Each structure stands twice: as C-alpha cells, then as structure tokens.
C-alpha cells in the first residue's frame, strides 16, 4: 500500500489553503497603523493609492458614515467633536484609569455600564475603545485586500509588551469585530527584533527601545540561530509621544489662558504635534493657535522642548535600567540597541522605525501559516497574583516567565458546607492589591459540601502564547470541576461581545458558520490522515472486508468534505472513528506485545 501524505512534526500542512484568505501583519499603533504582508520571508509594507504606509489611527464618526485615517484627520478641523484619536491608550481601561492619564482628556466620556470598560460619547453615539479599534482594523484589512486583490481573514497583531491582560483581550476582541482571526498577538519589541534580526542576521543580546505614541517598551532578547528569546521586558503602557504633545499643548493653553473645551484641546494637541515634528529637524518652531476665533501666538525652541519632555525620557531610562538588572545583563555586553517607534525618530540603517513592527508581524504571520525555521520565545511582562488576607498579593506567576506557562494553586474553604468562593486576580509587581491592576474576579461554584478546610480546590492559571490568561478549577478529593465565572474588571462581558458581533459584522452569522465549517473540515481531514497512516503501517491486521469497510467510511468523509454541511462532516468523521476502533485496539495489542518482547517499536517498521 502506498504511503499517503504524512507531514513531518512541526511542518505545517498547506493543502486547502485556497479556502482561507491571506494572513497579514498589523501594527495597531496609538498614532498610526501599519499593514504588511510577507512571502518567502520577505515582508512588504502595504501602501495606499498615494504611496503612504502610515494609516493614521484616527476615526471620525459622521452622521453619514465612519471615516478612518487621513480623511478622519481632516475632519478634526471641521468637526473635532466627532473625531477619536489615540484610542489605544484606552484599551482595556476603566474610568478611574482614564482620569489618572496625563493631561486634559480630549474625549467626552459616557458613564460606564457593565464590565467597567470606559466608553466615549461622540454625538449621539456611545462607543467602546474596542469598537473604535475595530474600525481602524477594518480599514487596515480593506487596504490590504484592495492592494492584494484577495480576501484577508487572519492576522498577527502587535501589542505593547507591557500591555496587561485586559488590553490584550480588548485588542483580540477588536480584531474579532473587524472579521479578523488573530493568529497570534505578538509583542511589539519582539516583532521589531524579528524584523531587525532576520534582516541583519544578528546574533547575541539585543535591546529594543520602543517609544511609540502612547506606550513605552524595553525588551532584552537573545538572538541565536533563528531563535528570538526574550530575556526580560518592561515598560509603561501609558507613556509615549502623546505625553510630549500633552506637555506642549498644556504650555500653549496656559500661555493663552481662558476657557477651553474638548474641541480646543484636540486642536491644541494637533498644533503641539506639528511643533514637535518640526523640532525634529529644526531648532525653533513658531505658530498660532486659533480657538473659537481667538488667535494666540506661540513659539517653542529645542531646549524648552527637551526640558518639557525630560521627565518622560528619564522614566524610560529608569525602566530600561530595571530591565537590564532583572535579566542580569551588563549594558556593555549588548550586541546593539534597536530603536523603534515614531517617538525615537532615529533612523535605523535601512529599516524604518515606523514600519519595523509591522514587518515583524508580517514575517510572523507567514511563519505561523506557512511554517518557518525561526522561533519566538516570549515572556509575561507582569507578575500575576491573587488577593489574599488583608489585601496582600500572592504572586502565582512571576514577571519575565517564558510563555506559555501554567501554575496551579490549592485553596480550601473556611466555612462548613461552603459551596462557592471568590478569587480576585491582579497583575502587577506591588505587594498590596490596591496598588496592582485588577484583572478579574472569578467565582468558583459547585464546591461539594464538606467541613471547613477539607476541600482541596486546585486552581490553574494559564497564560498562553498570546499572553492571555485562562483559569480552571477542580476539587481534588471528589474530582468535581468547579464552575469558573469570569467578571473582567475592565473588559467586555461575553453578552456584550456577542451583541457587538451581531451588530457590527454585516454577515456575522455566515462568518461564524464559515469558520466553524473550516475548523470541522480541518479536524476531519486530520482524522483521515491519521487512519491512512495507520493503514500504511498495520493494514495486515485487517481482513479484506474490514479494510473495505474502513475505505468506504473514509470515502463518506471525503464526500462530506466536498460539501458545506458541518453536521454531515462531523457525523461522517465520528462514524470513521467508530469503525476504526477495533483496528486501533489490535494495533495497541501488537505494540504492547512488541514492547514486552523487548523490541523497540521503531524496529517493527511502524
């Protein structure tokens, strides 16, 4: 019998790729979004019709529709009240966080509803940051589809390394709303290191200093023979070029005095940005601010500007120093420093600091879908812990632990017959709960009634390769699975997410059904492949009739695969599994007999 197609471990099967759209890389930035695609390890940034790579992360909500990018930026002058920018700073944040953000906020906030996620009020609309980000991602997807002439349905999306679980979840939810399957959330400095390292064939320990519009990351990586191992990372999810703009705008507004409203702040921020960008190449900037018909004249020189931003720059240096110390790396042993983000504006040899993250994301999207020799090994940026007695934090997973990671912790009850308990999960490095960031409250229910202290409830905290947390629990003495109910502190509830999916995707139902069908087909094909491999090895264990029966069952699955009926695919696959059960048992018997006889399994030609 001819051996049918078998894939080596780690090799990704490519057949039936035609059913899937293309996979792209997206750097969803605070100020700009960049899209790229890679083929054969060469990444290309996707530009608009006029050749621009940067898609401004600005959305205008007009009565007649939604504008994203440059058209939205132009709206800023006409209707500042309808325009949202820098939405990334609000991802996964609650109202209290937002109040603590630096500067006058250029948004009008709506009272928070369930879930605690901040909401923006724009005219008649109330929007979450997830929905605004989804609009930006939709524009990115359309740009790629227009340029490539094909459907795009999967993406690697980059996030700041220092993004917490809530912000990561919010980013993934935004992608779902935009009709994109997230292949992986990759940390921005890691993506930059990938693009840089592959381009330069760099080896050794490298630091990535990534100062973007709203976030700062500093990561240390070891580059060795295609492996990109993150040694340590640190940062501030609310520190970036926006803070420079706020400092300048606050100075301008103080100079002119008088009353300002939200629209004024947006214009002052836009002017501040112009001044900042001008000072990249010149020593002085002069200009006017026209707010509500009252003009004021302002000037800003380089020295004053550097004085304004000094506290922020000092903070980035303190963070970088801490990361080096965490990893026990001497700065002198670094092979190089990669500067990333518009706010560094120090050009790398031939990689644009604005584009390098998207390029890395595209390379990873290709690696995930078409296979690759490179390997990214990343870490958790923040320690994960739970609240214990007296508001103290007990750390479960330390920061800079390689992901994926899972750690279990045992809990017990303190009252007789207690059937439920609350577990509060926090993220951060401080010892007190109120100084850390609340991620979620989990309620364990269905604990079997026992005397206090008798149940042994094992709770497993797992962080996957996307840096996302899942929790599961089990009572060990009885084996009862405790029900875990997630109440995200700043996220969207499942109901809210479901409603948004229904409302926002034009073909939500078909989209979902299509995805489930694709998944069912992948499973069924894998099942056929496994049976064929087994036949190639052990067909002699079957009678002619049995073999014919199995072949017929395979044929029925293949027939189902050519159609679009998910239930038929699943039913045919289940039937194949049932028919091959005696065959599997005979194969196991043969394997065990061989092992008992002292033969290695591989000597039997399996």
């Amino acid at each position, binding site marked *: 019998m001819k051996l049918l197609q078998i894939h080596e471990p780690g090799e*990704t099967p490519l057949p039936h790729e035609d059913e899937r759209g293309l996979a792209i890389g997206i750097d969803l930035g605070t100020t700009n979004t960049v899209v790229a695609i890679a083929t054969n390890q060469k990444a290309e940034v996707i530009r608009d019709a006029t050749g621009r790579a940067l898609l401004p992360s600005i959305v205008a909500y007009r009565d007649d529709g939604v504008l994203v990018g440059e058209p939205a930026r132009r709206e800023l002058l006409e209707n500042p009240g309808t325009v949202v920018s820098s939405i990334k700073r609000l991802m996964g944040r609650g109202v209290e966080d937002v109040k603590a953000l630096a500067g006058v906020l250029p948004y009008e906030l709506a009272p928070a509803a369930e879930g605690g996620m901040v909401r923006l009020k724009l005219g008649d609309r109330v929007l979450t940051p997830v929905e605004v980000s989804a609009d930006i991602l939709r524009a990115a997807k359309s740009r790629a589809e227009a340029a490539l002439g094909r459907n795009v349905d999967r993406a690697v999306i980059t996030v700041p390394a220092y993004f917490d679980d809530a912000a990561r979840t919010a980013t993934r939810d935004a992608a779902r709303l935009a009709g994109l399957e997230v292949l992986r959330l990759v940390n921005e400095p890691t993506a930059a290191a990938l693009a840089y390292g592959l381009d330069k064939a760099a080896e050794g320990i490298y*630091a990535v200093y990534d100062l973007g519009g709203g976030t700062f990351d500093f990561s240390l990586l070891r580059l060795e023979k295609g*492996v990109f191992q993150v040694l340590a990372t640190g940062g501030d999810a609310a520190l970036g070029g926006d803070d420079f703009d706020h400092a300048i705008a606050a100075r301008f507004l103080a100079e002119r005095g008088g009353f300002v409203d939200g629209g004024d702040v947006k214009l002052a921020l836009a002017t501040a940005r112009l001044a900042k960008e001008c000072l990249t190449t010149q020593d002085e900037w002069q200009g006017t601010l026209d707010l509500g018909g009252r003009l004021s004249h302002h000037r800003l020189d380089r020295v004053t500007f550097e004085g304004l931003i000094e506290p922020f720059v000092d903070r980035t240096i303190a963070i970088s120093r801490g990361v080096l110390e965490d990893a026990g790396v001497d700065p002198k042993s670094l092979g190089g420093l990669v500067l990333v983000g518009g*706010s*560094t504006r*120090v050009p790398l040899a031939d990689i644009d600091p604005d584009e390098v993250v998207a390029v890395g994301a595209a390379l990873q999207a290709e690696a995930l879908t078409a296979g690759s020799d490179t390997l990214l090994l990343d870490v958790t940026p923040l320690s994960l812990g739970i609240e214990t007695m007296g508001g103290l934090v007990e750390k479960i997973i330390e920061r800079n632990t390689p992901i994926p990671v899972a750690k279990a912790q045992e809990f017990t009850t303190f009252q007789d017959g207690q059937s439920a308990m609350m577990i509060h999960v926090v993220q951060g490095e401080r010892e007190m709960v109120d100084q850390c960031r609340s991620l979620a409250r989990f309620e364990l229910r269905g604990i079997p009634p026992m005397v206090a202290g008798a149940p042994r409830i094992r709770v497993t905290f797992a962080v996957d390769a996307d840096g996302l947390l899942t929790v599961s629990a089990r009572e060990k003495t009885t084996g009862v699975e405790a029900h875990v109910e997630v109440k995200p502190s700043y996220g969207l509830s499942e109901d809210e997410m479901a409603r948004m999916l229904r409302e926002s995707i034009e073909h939500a139902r078909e989209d979902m059904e299509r995805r489930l069908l694709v998944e069912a087909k992948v499973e069924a094909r894998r099942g056929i492949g496994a049976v064929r*491999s*087994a036949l190639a090895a052990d067909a002699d264990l079957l009678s002619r009739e049995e073999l014919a029966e199995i072949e017929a069952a395979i044929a029925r699955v293949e027939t189902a695969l050519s159609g679009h009926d998910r239930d038929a695919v699943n039913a045919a696959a289940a039937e194949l599994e049932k028919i091959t059960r005696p065959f599997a048992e005979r194969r196991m018997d043969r394997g065990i007999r061989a*092992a008992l006889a002292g033969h290695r399994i591989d000597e039997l030609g399996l």
Partner: protein
Amino acid sequence: MNEASRNMDTAKADGTTAPVACWLCRGPVAAGALFCPTCRAVQPPAPVDHFARFGLPVAFDLDENELDRRYFAVQRQLHPDRFATRTARERAVSQSQAVAVNEAYETLKDPLARAEYLLQLHGVATEACQTISDPELLMEQMERREALSEIDTREAAEAFLDAAGRDVAASLATIAVAFGRGDLTAARRETTRLKYLTKLVEEARARRARLGGRPEAPILKTMPR
C-alpha cells in the same frame, strides 16, 4: 545516601516500557515520545522529571549552554507557533507540552531552583521561608540584615552587593561539592543559606535603586525626540 545523587537515566523513551495509545490514531506510541510514529500527531507531555525532559542526567552540575541548546531544540518542535494552523486539539496538546518544557527550563536554569528541585527529587524537603532552625545561619543572616539596614550611600550599597555576590558564588560552589559527594544534609543546609543570600541580594538591589543617582548606562544616550 551516596547512590541517590548519582546520575540516573530516568524513563527515557526507548520503547522498552509499555507504549501508550496515541490520542489521535489510537495506535501505540513509546512512552515519552513527542510525536506518534504513525500519524505524527504531537503527544501530551510524559510524566518525567525536569532533567529527563531534556535528556540530561539528574545532577546539580549542569552546562547552561547545553540546557539552552536542548531547550531551543525541543521548543522548535513543540511551541504552539508550530501548530497555529493545526486542529484545535493539536494546538491544545502542543501548549501543554510547551508549558511542561518551560517549567522544566525555568527550574533547571536557576541554580537555587535547581538545588531545591534536586533535593525534592531525593525526598529531602527544604526549610520553609520563615524558619531557620540552624542557629549559625540565623546569626549570620541577622548580622547581614542589620548591615544592610544601615547602608545610606550608593557606594556602600554597591560594596555590599559585591560582597553578597561573592558569597552567592561561593555558596553555589559549596552546593555543587555537596551534591557531588552525595551529602544531601550539607546540600540542604547550604541551599537554605543560598535562599537567604538571594533574598538579601534582591533587597540590596532595591535599596540601591532607592538611593538612586546611578551613572547612566552608556547605551541609552540616544534621546528620543
């Protein structure tokens, strides 16, 4: 207790132990094998110790470069990124493998965690954080702690850290010798001491950070504009 510390070649996948059934094709797979020899499906992590996971001998002395090399080689095959387009079940199995590999790597990479784990493998419990039953060790730690609390300049903190760093290195050498001789009592005593020294270093670092004023790292001279 001499034989306990000798290198053990634990449950290596050599096919002579009873095979287990592959979760996908349900055929025989040698215990500990990463992939099914027939259908190539990734297998769940075998219940082996952290050393066996990398095919390393059970010993305190460990070549860190060799550990890294094996860790990368195993992750190249098992990391979830390699299974991004596979079925949901294969993705889940690959994640459980990567989790087991990461846990083993984290434990073996850090000498203190490695020493504690090795003692645990030999059935010797290390002392809980709060108690020091050894009066000599207790005395030493109290004196060091007092010295640390009196530090009020950056230079003094640096000098303290230098001395503590030398002590850590010496302690590691002592632990290696103790494990090498199979003297688990000595290994345990010194491991407890290393635990306190490590904590002391952490606190000294925190103190130095509070005292501030450290000269800037030369690599960070490039200012963002």
